[in-house]
């Protein structure tokens, strides 16, 4: 019984982890079709923003929930204005440019903080389930992740900005002909995606620690999750995170964590062979 409870909790944590890593990319790539190769570095910057500001005396929760999203959101806004804005619709150029940004950010952060692992120990201690235990902080991540996606759904479905953003991403030219300034909508959406990525980076930093090169560990999983999800960014990313996370957990418990990672990647390849449009290309098509 305890074993089952711990597996279920571990599953929720794994799924939340994937969904958090992919959330910002779901906005930037899923919605805006910008292939952001610097997504991993945005996560890394979020981690550093939280750790550095916490060490400077800021309350840990404020460092994670306020400082990190603001810092990375601002970095995203500046990069959108200087680079991304000029490349909308030019996929290869965007890939090259964001790859350059990625390398530049890694270099910059290495110069400032050195190529060593920084970390903070996860707060809140652990929850005992019979003979097993799981970190309370990790469970909190699952709750925050659910709140983040719920909030995103409400924003897109219920607010005027959400409606205008959805319309603009579907047909930029027509949105402009109706009086919407598409440049502004894109800038705000990109900055929001960066801010969400910063928050996610800060939230996983106490578990994974940060090094300047840690982005590489996240970026592939983030892209796989968003692409496997398909066109509906919220239902899609959540359903693919659930599917891939379950496979990962199952193999990790049955064999080893490394095999869990391998199984996740193999599952994504099979999934995209069977459903080239992602999960929401076939199921939950009317969702968001």
């Amino acid at each position, binding site marked *: 019984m305890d074993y089952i409870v711990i597996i279920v909790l571990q599953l929720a944590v794994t799924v939340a982890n994937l969904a958090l890593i992919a959330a910002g990319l779901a906005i930037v790539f899923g919605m805006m079709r910008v292939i952001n190769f610097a997504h991993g570095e945005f996560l890394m910057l979020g981690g550093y923003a939280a750790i550095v500001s916490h060490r400077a005396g800021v309350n840990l929760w404020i460092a994670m929930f306020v400082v990190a999203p603001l810092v990375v959101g601002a970095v995203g806004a500046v990069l959108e204005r200087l680079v991304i804005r000029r490349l909308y619709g030019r996929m290869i150029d965007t890939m090259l440019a964001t790859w350059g940004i990625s390398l530049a950010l890694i270099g910059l952060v290495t110069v400032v903080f050195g190529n060593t692992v920084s970390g903070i120990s996860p707060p809140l201690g652990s929850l005992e389930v019979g003979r097993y235990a799981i970190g309370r902080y990790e469970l909190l991540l699952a709750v925050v992740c659910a709140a983040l996606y719920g909030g995103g759904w409400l924003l897109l479905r219920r607010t*005027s900005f959400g*409606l*205008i953003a*959805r*319309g603009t991403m*579907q*047909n930029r*030219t*027509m*949105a*402009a*002909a*109706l*009086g*919407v*300034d*598409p440049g502004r909508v894109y800038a705000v959406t990109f900055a929001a995606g960066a801010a969400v990525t910063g928050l996610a980076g800060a939230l996983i930093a106490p578990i994974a620690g940060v090094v300047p090169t840690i982005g590489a560990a996240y970026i592939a999983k983030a892209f796989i999750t968003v692409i496997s999800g398909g066109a509906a960014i919220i239902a899609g990313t959540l359903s693919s995170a659930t599917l891939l996370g379950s496979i990962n957990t199952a193999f990790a418990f049955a064999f080893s964590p490394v095999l869990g990672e391998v199984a996740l990647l193999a599952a994504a390849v099979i999934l995209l062979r069977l459903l080239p449009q992602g999960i929401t290309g076939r199921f939950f098509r*009317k969702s968001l």
Partner: protein
Amino acid sequence: MSLLAASGIEAGYGQMRVLTDVRFEVEEGEFLGILGHNGMGKSTLLKALCGEIPLTRGAIAFADRDVGKLAVHARARAGIGYVPQGRQIFPALTVRENMLMAALGSGRPATVADRVLAKFPRLQPIVDRAGGVLSGGEQQILALARCLCGEPKLLLLDEPTEGVQPSIRDEISDTLLRLRRDFGLTLLLVEQNIQFMQSLADRVLHMEKGRVSAGHDEAAGALAF
């Protein structure tokens, strides 16, 4: 008084010039038609007027204001409504959301969309249907309704009967006449269907090889075939 005046405008795509020295005026409250075959530059003219392609020469005055260099969205907010060829309905938004997008996107309150919807009994039963699954005729009516949600003074219409059944064509022309009355609109319609044009326009100009000229009977007769 003229609401829109194009004086010597030239525009095109890249190196290719499509419009040559186009001059005409649309009077306030007028329904002006521009007739021309495919490839004569009708759609390009409307794109130049709404700002989708830049002018290489000439000027556009709208409501006594020079709008020739304004961005697309700024011209829309100034009162130039554009219903493009192919309707360009947002496929994943519902009928209501398509209209709300136009109202909110141009800085109007959401109530404008409800007020416009009340004038379109045809759309009321399908407000929650996705734009992408509507028929061509329904999409055309929605494109008109959506445009009105931005409260334009001038409506630019690009071949509203293209790809629409003949029975719906009559409905569209009735709708246009009714809207003109109800909303006090000024309209500029480009078409190649002469019957449709004649049932609507107060005055018809002709477009040939990127130039606009006053209509004459032979040209109209030739186009009827």
